[in-house]
């Protein structure tokens, strides 16, 4: 598994790849994906021998961001693949590729309400049946932040006191973020 070949394949699938300093953030690569590229990305990662560490959703303004974490067994390589949910809060499932994702997706639906299309048994896993639309981990309006607010600020010496970023509706959130980052 040599990393450059894999990164080449990522290039075709993803919109932005960012090499991250492991000692500062704890993972190596941050890959931003289109929503419909998630399944091919998962298939590619399984073929390369990565295992699925976890799947987590973060509630930010434009849309809920689902983060897939992969890691490799032989060489140290931790990858965070990020994808935004569409307007109907849906996401294609990868539970037929990574069966481990089955439970992660059910739990994310419990807590964030992200419906995973194509999931074989999308029943509540952790919460009881009657709390299906409780969605506890969604933020209230006051605390909701924009996706830029939770991104690593480029390390300029003194980050100016950040005015409260009013949530500007972005048409294509990843496109804007990727130019500014890469």
């Amino acid at each position: 598994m040599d990393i450059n070949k894999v990164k080449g394949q990522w290039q075709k699938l993803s919109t932005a790849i960012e090499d991250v300093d492991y000692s500062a953030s704890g993972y190596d690569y941050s890959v931003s994906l289109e929503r419909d590229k998630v399944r091919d990305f998962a298939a590619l990662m399984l073929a390369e021998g990565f295992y699925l560490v976890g799947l987590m959703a973060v509630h930010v303004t434009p849309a809920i961001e689902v983060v897939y974490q992969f890691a490799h067994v032989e060489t140290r390589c931790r990858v965070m693949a990020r994808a935004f949910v569409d307007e109907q809060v849906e996401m294609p499932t990868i539970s037929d590729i990574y069966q481990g994702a089955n439970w992660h997706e059910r739990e994310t639906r419990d807590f964030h309400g992200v419906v995973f299309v194509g999931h074989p048994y999308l029943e509540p896993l952790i919460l009881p049946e009657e709390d299906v639309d409780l969605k506890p981990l969604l933020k209230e309006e006051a605390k909701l932040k924009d996706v830029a607010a939770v991104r690593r600020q480029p390390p300029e010496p003194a980050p100016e006191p950040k005015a409260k970023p009013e949530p500007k509706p972005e048409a294509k959130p990843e496109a804007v973020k990727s130019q500014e980052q890469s």
Partner: protein
Amino acid sequence: MSIDVEVLEDSRHHRYVLNMGPQHPSTHGVLRVLLELEGEYAMELLPVLGYGHRCHEKIAEFKPAKSFMPNTARMDYLGALIYNQGFAQLLEKAAGIEVPERVEYIRVITSELNRIQSHLLWYGAYLLDLGAFTPIMYAFDDREHILDILEDVTGSRLTYCYARVGGVSKDIDDKFVTRTRAFIDRLRSRFPMYEDLVNGNIILQKRLIDVGELTPQICARYGITGPLLRGTGVAYDIRRAEPYSIYSKFDFEIPTETKGDCMASFLVRFRELEQSLRIIEQALDGLPEGPIMAAKVPKKLKLPAGDYNSSVEAPRGELSYYLVSDGSDVPYRLKVRTPSYSNLSVVPEMCRGMLLSDVVSAMGALDLVIPEIDR
């Protein structure tokens, strides 16, 4: 060896559903498994979770990051010090705090003692599932020594809150060192007894060999890590793959087996006891003097915006904290990836077609701690 009884299409009508749990002697905690049995063969299994859910991740979004430390110990009470260490490292990585050398040594020693204590409890409880009542008493006899040693320095016996951001709450003294060395010799002298009484026993071997076989491919698809993955021959241990803290300084092997069945993960955990003892010995020899708290730890710990991940080797597998911070001292989102969660998700595929007593021994081999699954 999952017995592949060829299931006729219309045979589903003479199956019946058996409810194992949430109060059941061999599910370690409130786990309920719905079994669809045909005779004694479990054809379908459906673990039902959530009985022990306390929404730790929601609590993390209301309090300052560093006051979440006691919650980490309540997630996996058997590896509490390792969970504390993982969370402390996460905040130190986020805030960029350098930890003095002595603290790293203390954390490694207490974590390895915690790992041994967790393996000993698993050892006793697993044999209780298999019907042997005596070994749990011998294992608990050894485990009590560790609890006394750790109680002396941390103040509690199970749910520790010992690590602080940038250090530990109390220093270890010579009494701790001498008692730990005495414990190491005592446990080493007990290994032959365990070999005779349990590991060599033909009844136990028959119960464990060829039961619940896993392969590296299944482990990759389900995200299984820890002794189960090492039982299938993959020497993947976060202490060696992504050396955090000062594990790169110690030489210890990663015990692995090849078959990946219950006996494999059983022997891997048993040999890990010896490796942890070696780590503790080397750490005690190299214990430096020095402060036990980092120099400047801000009272209001502001975590710079961004997301951080900290992975640690818990007794059951890989534990990862994923923190998304928006610059304030309250985490925006904290996700805890616990090993038993993924290890348990393989049960429906692994235990299909098994006998009921094999389902019990296969699930015992997963070394489950239910509170860390439900979080």
